[in-house]
């Protein structure tokens, strides 16, 4: 049983996803390799716990597109990995994702924090231009993606990762609310 907490927002209470359940979902998919740049949305709930978890090997990168290549190269012998970053890094990595993930058809699974998104709004309704454009760009690139912001959104993580590796294509989890460190 996982407790769900609620936080007041301008439009009422919103619930936040559990970081530990997201981590459990990543592990359930057979992922032991995490490649990451810090992102304030996922820092406390995901990256710090992952950095202390002996069940993962964390490789810290200097720039996000390094991680696209690392994850893709790991996949050749079946090693599963997850790349963590902020949406700014995602935008900066689009050419690598295009070439390596799409043109080459390689599985690169990303967890992307939507920094600046208001918890009670959809990404497209955000006041932040850099948030509003994310899903339209991913749709234009025909990239598989899913949004995690409600507690119940985390349940699809193992299946989405497995599907990305089965189809040998990228998948991007967009984190719309900061996961709780619980």
């Amino acid at each position, binding site marked *: 049983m996982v407790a769900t907490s609620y936080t007041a927002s301008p439009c009422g209470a919103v619930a936040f996803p559990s970081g530990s359940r997201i981590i459990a979902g990543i592990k359930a998919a057979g992922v032991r*390799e995490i490649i990451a740049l810090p992102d304030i949305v996922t820092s406390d709930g995901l990256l710090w716990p992952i950095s202390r978890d002996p069940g993962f*090997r964390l*490789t*810290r*990168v*200097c*720039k996000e*597109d*390094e*991680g*696209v*290549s*690392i*994850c*893709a*190269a*790991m996949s*050749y*012998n*079946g*090693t599963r*990995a997850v790349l963590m970053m902020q949406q700014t890094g995602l935008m900066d990595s689009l*050419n*690598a994702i295009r*070439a*390596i993930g799409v*043109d*080459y*058809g390689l599985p690169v699974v990303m967890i992307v924090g939507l920094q600046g998104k208001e918890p009670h709004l959809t990404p497209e309704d955000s006041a932040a231009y850099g948030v509003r454009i994310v899903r339209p760009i991913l749709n234009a690139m025909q990239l598989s993606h899913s949004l995690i912001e409600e507690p119940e959104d985390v349940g699809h993580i193992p299946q989405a990762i497995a599907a990305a590796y089965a189809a040998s294509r990228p998948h991007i989890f967009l984190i719309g609310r900061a996961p709780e460190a619980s």
Partner: protein
Amino acid sequence: MTLRRDDALKALIPFVGDDDIVVAVYQSCFDWLALNPRDLNYVAVGAMGQASSHALGLALANPGRRVLVFDGDGSLLMNLGSMVTIANAGVTNLYHFLFANRVYEVNGAHPLPGADVVNFAAFARAAGYAHAVSFNDLDRLRGGLPDMLKEAGPQMAVLEIVPGDAYPRDYNYIHGAAARQSFRAALNRR
């Protein structure tokens, strides 16, 4: 003293074992494919600058193999942080050969920014590589390779090269599915 690229690649051939992975880019890749075709040549790096990062992924996921990356200087300038990432990752099976011609050879031979002053071996040492050395002479390269490849990585050898015999640029092959499939099959064969 000059070091021709094709001579440098030929000097490397005896030191590349059957189980080693070679990640190569641009003209060094095309020349290497002609001089030493093998299934464990990894040619699909996708975007300029990414060879060292692919090499790190391969090195992490395949600790029982050596990974040799034949990088370009213009490419590495696009991904200098990867040297810090590589050193920090603690891989000991990565050997970084930098073919430094100081120009963007396949894009019109325009000079690199800082072409006359950039010290790549110093970059590698400052990033935390175990060792870095430069070669501009074939005899010194031949003499230095055995010791370099005996030592734990990450190591860098900067090869200050001039073009030699250039082999055809088959972009369709390096970006095609067949090259990736043959690499994957060879990697998982043993």
